[in-house]
């Protein structure tokens, strides 16, 4: 990041470790996937804040045993929703800064370093052959358009059904869009403190979007949405266009009649998983629910929703470095979903889709993206 301001320094005298971050306020169900699993005080937000402060003040020396408490966190931000102290909105920022300092001082985790190297070499964290611009030809898209669909690496190289459904919906709705030669938005690097390659990639994306003559960007990935909207401005990278998440666009398209969901006799029961990047990080809770309300399905909410929603376990570099715990976290969410009686689990983030599926049993309800669901009914 370019900012020299230290959020740890700003909140150097905050947090009495009251434990409010550990549980959903007045609900008393667990809020922190990391603390709930690992148990030591260091794996809750309050412990990490004390670590960050201690390292900043020089009360604690850097050493490799610090890496797990620092990195075994999905940065889901549920702690921020529960914390009642003045620093509550800055906890994830503190953890991300702590991670960046860890990378500088003692290096990151091997699995994180791997996807950093992949981003540098292949422009995506998976090490897949970079082919984004080929989509223009594959889907017969224009070279320039008012809207750029920022596909995101996970949709483009892993959860391709989300990319395909998004393109299908945009075409059916008659949206004038294209894709650009996008590089990884760098969310995985920012979340894991590996900031060196970020500015260059972000600037490349800004240039590509500008070259496409776009007036707005659509993302189907909640992580990309958060990064382009919130992190790029902090980096000093101005995209100069509006960034919209697909759930917001779907609502807009339905509201103005550009897409009209067909009604069916059999209405499936579905449940909605709020992605952390979309919900807690960006405050978007209603748009997906508004879209679902227009579809021939019945939404049954899980016991933790919106700002209190239990994380899928896939974010913050957790899946790459701590897969077992990450999948266990997803399993907890799946159990919540099963208690609703849902036949489908719907979300709007390829990370969530992937990890929730990993946490599901074979005979459990399928996990799909909201774009896939909408595409079925238009």
């Amino acid at each position, binding site marked *: 990041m370019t900012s020299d301001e230290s959020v740890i320094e700003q909140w*150097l*005298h*905050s*947090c*009495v*470790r*009251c*434990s*409010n971050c*550990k*549980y959903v*306020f*007045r*609900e*008393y169900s667990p809020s922190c996937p990391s603390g709930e699993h*690992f*148990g*030591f*005080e*260091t794996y*809750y937000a*309050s*412990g990490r804040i*004390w*670590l960050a*402060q*201690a390292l900043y003040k020089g*009360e*604690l*020396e850097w*050493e490799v*045993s*610090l890496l*797990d*408490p*620092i990195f075994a966190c999905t940065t889901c931000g549920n702690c921020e929703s529960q914390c*009642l*102290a*003045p620093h509550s909105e800055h906890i994830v920022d503190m953890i991300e800064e702590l991670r960046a300092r860890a990378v500088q001082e003692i290096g990151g985790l091997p699995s994180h370093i791997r996807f950093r190297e992949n981003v540098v070499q292949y422009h995506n964290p998976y090490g897949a052959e970079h082919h984004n611009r080929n989509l223009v030809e594959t889907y017969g898209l224009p070279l320039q358009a008012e809207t750029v669909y920022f596909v995101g690496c996970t949709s483009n190289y892993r959860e391709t059904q989300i990319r395909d459904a998004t393109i299908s919906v945009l075409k059916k709705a008659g949206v004038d869009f294209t894709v650009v030669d996008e590089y990884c938005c760098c969310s995985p690097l920012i979340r894991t403190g590996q900031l060196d390659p970020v500015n260059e990639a972000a600037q490349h994306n800004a240039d590509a979007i500008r070259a496409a003559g776009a007036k707005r960007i659509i993302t189907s990935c909640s992580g990309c949405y958060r990064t382009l909207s919130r992190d790029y401005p902090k980096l000093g990278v101005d995209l100069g266009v509006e960034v919209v998440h697909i759930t917001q666009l779907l609502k807009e398209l339905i509201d103005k009649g550009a897409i009209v969901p067909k009604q069916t006799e059999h209405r499936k029961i579905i449940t909605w998983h709020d992605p952390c990047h979309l919900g807690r990080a960006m405050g978007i809770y209603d748009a997906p629910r508004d879209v679902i309300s227009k579809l021939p399905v019945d939404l049954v909410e899980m016991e933790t929703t919106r700002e209190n929603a239990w994380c899928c376990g896939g974010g913050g570099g957790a899946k790459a470095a701590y897969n077992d715990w990450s999948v266990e976290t997803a399993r907890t969410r799946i159990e919540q979903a099963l208690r609703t009686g849902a036949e489908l689990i719907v979300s709007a983030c390829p990370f969530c889709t992937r990890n929730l599926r990993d946490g599901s049993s074979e005979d459990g309800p399928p996990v799909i993206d909201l774009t896939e669901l909408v595409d079925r009914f238009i």
Partner: protein
Amino acid sequence: MSLKEKFERIVGADHVSDGAAERYVYSRDMTENPPRTPQLIVMPSTTEEVQQIVRLANEERVPLVPFATGQSVGGLTIPQVNDAVIVDLKRMNKILDVDEEGMYMVVEPGVTFGHVRKYLDENHPGLRYTYAISSPFTSVIANALLQGLCDLSTRYGAMAEFINGLEAVLPTGEIVRVGSAILGDDNWFGRYPLPDLVGLFTGWQGMTGIVTKMALQLWPKKPFTRHFALFTFGDFMTTDLLKQIVRADLADDAGALSFSVVKGLIGMPAPIEAIEGEPDYGTFLTLSGVTSLVLDEKVRLLERMVNSSKVKEPKNLLIPFEAVARLMSEEAYGWVDFPSDSFKQLTEYDGLTWMGTYIHTKNWGEALFKGRKIVEKYGYELMAFLKPMKGMHFCEFKFIIRFERDDENLKRVRQCNNELLDLALDLKAIPYKTPVWSAKKLHERADPNFIELVRRIRDLLDPHGIMNPGRWGL
């Protein structure tokens, strides 16, 4: 085999840490008490694992420090000797039983006020426990063992009074029960008529064993309840009026706060200064009755008492809580419904402390009057908290200080608390949740035979001195 490996064989490798992060975080708490780094942290999940930990500690002569759910105060979970092992009990978090007829629950040490509240509301809506003004996620066992106070203390006393019995692992490794459950499970109805050995564990700050289960009394929810806010002036006039109200058995709970605390609750930013002419105290009163008639009569009596007090202080004001909520916010109901909710205003900085005591009723007003002068001298916000205890048999007062933990503040806070303690001891008050420095000052003034008896009992139970050595200044 290393000591760490031996503990790992008991609780599993995932539940033992000697990492720098854990050793740092468990070396300190939110208060001004000096840190000391433990060598290991272990997290058992059963009584049997606790027993094995204690036996191993005896073999290896390793000091153990019990730790509950993480909101530690008074330095009570900070080791007083080097190379201690912290026994973090938060994995033992089951509510084992709720006996509707006997009105008690049996819980493990990791169970918090919040979890009890939720569990009872969902499964036993006619019953309630008593709740503290601490974080909602404070261990109910820890608070009972430390004889803390709660929102039924005005009627029933310190939280240790609510203990029907307990199970503990002694410092020598035996598992014992005290109370009526010595005749077996489903029989945790009380402590009498037996030698009352609950007292071997309450107030001992973890020196006599690790409590692994506790039976705690529950209470029927009263069908008719009303809350009031009473705003008063002057330390002596306030305490005199509260004494009158509580002696008349009108209030289930009477928690009085410096007006600064009230202003903080409604959102005034720190630091909060007292303004000339504003009330000195706001007291939240809870009145109840088995019929509306009983409740109405209590309300009438309360109003009459407050009106009588206006002869001396015309500005005293009693207002129904509905008006408070309308003026402040709906959130206000949370403060009386579940006092832990009001803890948030104490989370302003990274430091929080208080010098709290139980005191003879006759000395209550003087303690407040002189204590506030000390707090004002040091320039801290005036955040007194006082409660009439056990039907006015004794009283509680404390001065809370929220502060930034820099070197200068730590020194100043220590000096301020020292002066407050000297004042309290001059008035023969007993400090509770006592830090070591405070216990040592108490020893200087206490009957030496009492201190010697405590020491002898501790030595008898813990011949190898492994349980929290140095605690309570011993």
